[in-house]
């Protein structure tokens, strides 16, 4: 059993933590033993419900382990929680800010709680405000900051007394790409000062910025290593596949149907494939296979794939039916104000039948507000919007049957069983007799909900909640499907499976509108609208948007690079106008 050593920032020895009791009993950590080295940046990755937050809270002394010992900076946390808390910095998932206090007042509060003397405080404020670029916003209430600014203020509050060990719980979720990059610069600077950092994240690309990565699943550590080493272990199994005639998405479906293919992701211009160990590329006529370096997403899929029951893959579909050019959704000059807050500014776009249309942006960009106006849940302040030729806000119930809607966090009845949820939504959409039976049977089979029929929706794993929500929205076979942040908080394996389904429905003629804050998901959309602070930054196909952002230094930018370049350009125009 590992004993605390000076060089370890954090040691878990046989730690178990169980929440709840009886049927609702959840084992968050299961006999976990590991050590996090001091002076390094360690990333904590894993699917939703893997135990990441529990692990960080145990390290911060906010939970007590049922079994095992937790040593932080050489001290037993259960015995000396307060002494340890004086030496660590902790930023909870929601940043722990008082929204009705200003930036300065939040800093004052946490400085006093850390026991900083007034004299030392002022110098530290200056440093932190410079580091986080929050200087001009000192008098602004924290609730009125953007997501990225809140994240930086939360970090500043955790850094007031320079900690020996910094714990960050998913600091980058839903935050715009620029703020994410800035956060990682700050982390790098702290590391240079000798601060140990443990950071959990849902973004797999961020793993590559860590010195060390812990891969957690179902309360156990699957692996702990240098991310580069983990990636190089997959040497020879990753390929970039292109085909001269088949479109990327059809190629992806074909590839996924092949046995040795563990994962096929859409890249900027090709399909990225991970093969099972000791297999050779399957023979697909015309396809060009080019070996490439593994990414951390491949490591994730490879390690977790073995632990999951194989999902029935969405069958490879016939090449997409020719797209009809009929416009099913048209938005012109859309604006929305909340008081004097301009939440959506002059948004315009059209969506054709059978398209997957994506609204991309960070939290607070105006995606959900736009969505609610489209679905007729919120009146527009100005502008016109037509869904299937009707304004849903004024349209009769008949027109609303044209759409299926999956709200953020999946609006299911948590205390009803899966079967009861399905029955309720079937009744709500007026399904009767033979059609009702046929659709319920379809939902059970298509989403593999059979084994869960009697389980309460609230107790389902997140991935199955997502499936159930999708099943409920599709029961009445709507030609248009609205999905608001369907992949938020869902692990990468489930996300990739989800997108396969969506593409499958789109190929069958369903029009899909989807919002997301994951830039890599942009590749799954036919057309995109990039939003920031309520305004449209760019619109077009993923390739067009990336091409627009190409520059001499970066001729082949990723969607995230493109987004960052566009935000920078947008801010410049605003500044010029001001």
């Amino acid at each position, binding site marked *: 059993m590992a004993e605390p050593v000076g060089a370890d920032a954090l040691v878990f020895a046989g730690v178990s933590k169980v929440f709840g009791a009886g049927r609702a009993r959840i084992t968050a950590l299961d006999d976990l033993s590991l050590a996090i080295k001091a002076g390094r940046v360690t990333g904590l990755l894993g699917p939703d419900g893997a135990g990441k937050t529990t692990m960080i809270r145990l390290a911060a002394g906010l939970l007590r382990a049922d079994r095992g010992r937790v040593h932080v900076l050489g001290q037993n946390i259960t015995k000396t929680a307060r002494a340890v808390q004086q030496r*660590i910095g902790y930023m909870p998932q929601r940043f722990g800010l008082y929204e009705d206090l200003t930036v300065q007042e939040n800093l004052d509060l946490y400085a006093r709680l850390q026991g900083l003397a007034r004299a030392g405080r002022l110098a530290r404020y200056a440093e932190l405000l410079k580091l986080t670029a929050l200087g001009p916003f000192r008098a602004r209430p924290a609730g009125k900051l953007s997501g990225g600014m809140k994240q930086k203020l939360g970090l500043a509050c955790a850094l007031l007394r320079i900690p020996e060990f910094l714990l960050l719980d998913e600091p980058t979720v839903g935050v715009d790409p620029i703020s994410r990059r800035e956060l990682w610069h700050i982390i790098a600077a702290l590391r240079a000062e000798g601060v140990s950092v443990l950071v959990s994240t849902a973004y797999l690309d961020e793993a590559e910025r860590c010195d060390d990565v812990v891969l957690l699943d179902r309360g156990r550590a699957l692996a702990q290593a240098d991310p580069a080493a983990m990636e190089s272990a997959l040497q020879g199994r990753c390929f970039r596949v292109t085909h001269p005639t088949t479109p990327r998405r059809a190629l992806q479906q074909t590839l996924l149907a092949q046995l040795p293919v563990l994962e096929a992701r859409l890249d900027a211009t090709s399909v990225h494939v991970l093969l099972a160990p000791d297999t050779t590329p399957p023979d697909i006529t015309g396809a060009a296979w080019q070996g490439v370096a593994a990414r951390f997403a491949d490591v994730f899929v490879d390690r977790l794939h073995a632990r999951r029951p194989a999902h029935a893959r969405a069958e490879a579909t016939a090449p997409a039916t020719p797209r009809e050019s009929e416009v099913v959704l048209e938005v012109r000059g859309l604006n929305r104000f909340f008081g004097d807050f301009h939440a959506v500014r002059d948004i315009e776009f059209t969506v054709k039948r059978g398209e997957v249309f994506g609204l991309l942006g960070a939290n607070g960009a105006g995606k959900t507000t736009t969505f609610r106006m489209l679905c007729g849940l919120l009146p527009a302040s100005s502008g016109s919007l037509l869904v299937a030729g009707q304004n849903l806000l004024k349209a009769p119930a008949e027109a609303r049957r044209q759409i299926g809607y999956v709200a953020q966090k999946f609006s299911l009845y948590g205390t009803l069983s899966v079967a009861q949820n399905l029955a309720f939504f079937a009744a709500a959409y007026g399904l009767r007799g033979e059609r009702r039976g046929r659709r319920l049977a379809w939902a059970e089979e298509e989403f593999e909900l059979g084994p869960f029929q009697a389980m309460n929706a609230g107790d389902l794993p997140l991935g199955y909640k997502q499936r159930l929500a999708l099943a409920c929205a599709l029961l009445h076979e709507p030609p248009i499907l609205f999905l608001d942040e369907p992949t938020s908080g869902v692990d990468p394996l489930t996300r990739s499976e989800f997108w396969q389904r969506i593409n499958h429905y789109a190929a069958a003629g369903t029009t899909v509108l989807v919002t997301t804050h994951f830039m890599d998901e942009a590749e799954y959309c036919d057309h995109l609208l990039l939003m920031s602070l309520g305004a449209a930054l760019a619109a077009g196909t993923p390739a067009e948007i990336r091409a627009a952002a190409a520059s001499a230094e970066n001729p082949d930018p990723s969607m995230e690079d493109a987004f960052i370049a566009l935000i920078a350009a947008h801010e410049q125009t605003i500044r010029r106008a001001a």
Partner: protein
Amino acid sequence: MNGRRLAGLITKETLQIFRDPSALGIAFILPLFLLLLFGFGVSLNAEHVPIGVVADHPNPTTDPLVAALRHSRYFEVRPLAGLGPARDLLSRREIDAILWLRNDFARQTLTEAPATIGLIVNGTDANTARLVQGYVLQAWMIWLAQQNQAAARPLGLSVALQFRIWFNPALRSQDYLVPGLIAIIMTLIGALLTALVVAREWERGTMEALMAAPVTMAEILAGKLLPYFVLGMGGMALSVALAVFVFAVPLHGSVLILALASALFMLVALGMGLLISSLARIQFVAGQIAIVVTFLPAFILSGFVFDIRSMPAPVQMITRILPARYFVSILQSVFLAGDVWSVILPDMAVLAVMATFFLGVTLARSRKRLD
């Protein structure tokens, strides 16, 4: 307890109170609303009660009695022709009582036999019924006295009863409702508001950040206790000022005792609020519990509106564990009777025990952890 950390927490809480309109609403607008409602709107006095008078044989003996009723501000007299129509009016609630002077009334007063009058009262509203009964009796006494004087001889009743109403001579219901309200208002601020603001910290995730900071649980609790103590005492001062200057409720006892008792009760209410918030981490649930466990009992069972002595014995037992009961008793004594130590001291002792209990349990229960 570290001064710097405590100062930080108190500053934060104070800023939040002033920026959050709902906190100020509960502390100052709600008391104002309740005081106006109970001061002006609700009156437990019976005034202008419609009463039917059936005199089978109107004559000089009965006239003064009817006149006495007519001149009283408590009654609206309606002379009626017979008992039949009077009964109809009573059952339609157009009148609340019937005074029946039989045809042999005048004759009886002149004989040795006791003279009888009939009084039929609608008992649906027991409170009004009792008041009507009392008022009619009073008018009857006055009439008897007059008859005695006029005839210069004893008439049936040989003992003259003298009525004197103590502590609330004008029988104004405001005078005892408004002091009682102070207990309600302080329960709202101490228990409901405190339970809500702590639950809000849980909901917004700020409690997690506080707990990860090197503060002690005692500091976190004191950081909540002190600002809301001041707020509650502010609400109390506002209520007392309104009671005395707007509603002209007399304050016979000393302000110091009033403040001291209020401070004790405030600690009890805060203790209950903090204890609730350690059980419920969702504002909705915390609010429900606070209303059911603290506010409603204080409203109904504290003796503020309904007299505890007229409650059934088991309910009376329950009122003994209600802090508000003891505070209402102190308030009514201090306002209406003065510093009656035999009432105030035992009540304050009970409040002190309760404050220690609630705050002690809260401190023992609260751990600086999320599970």
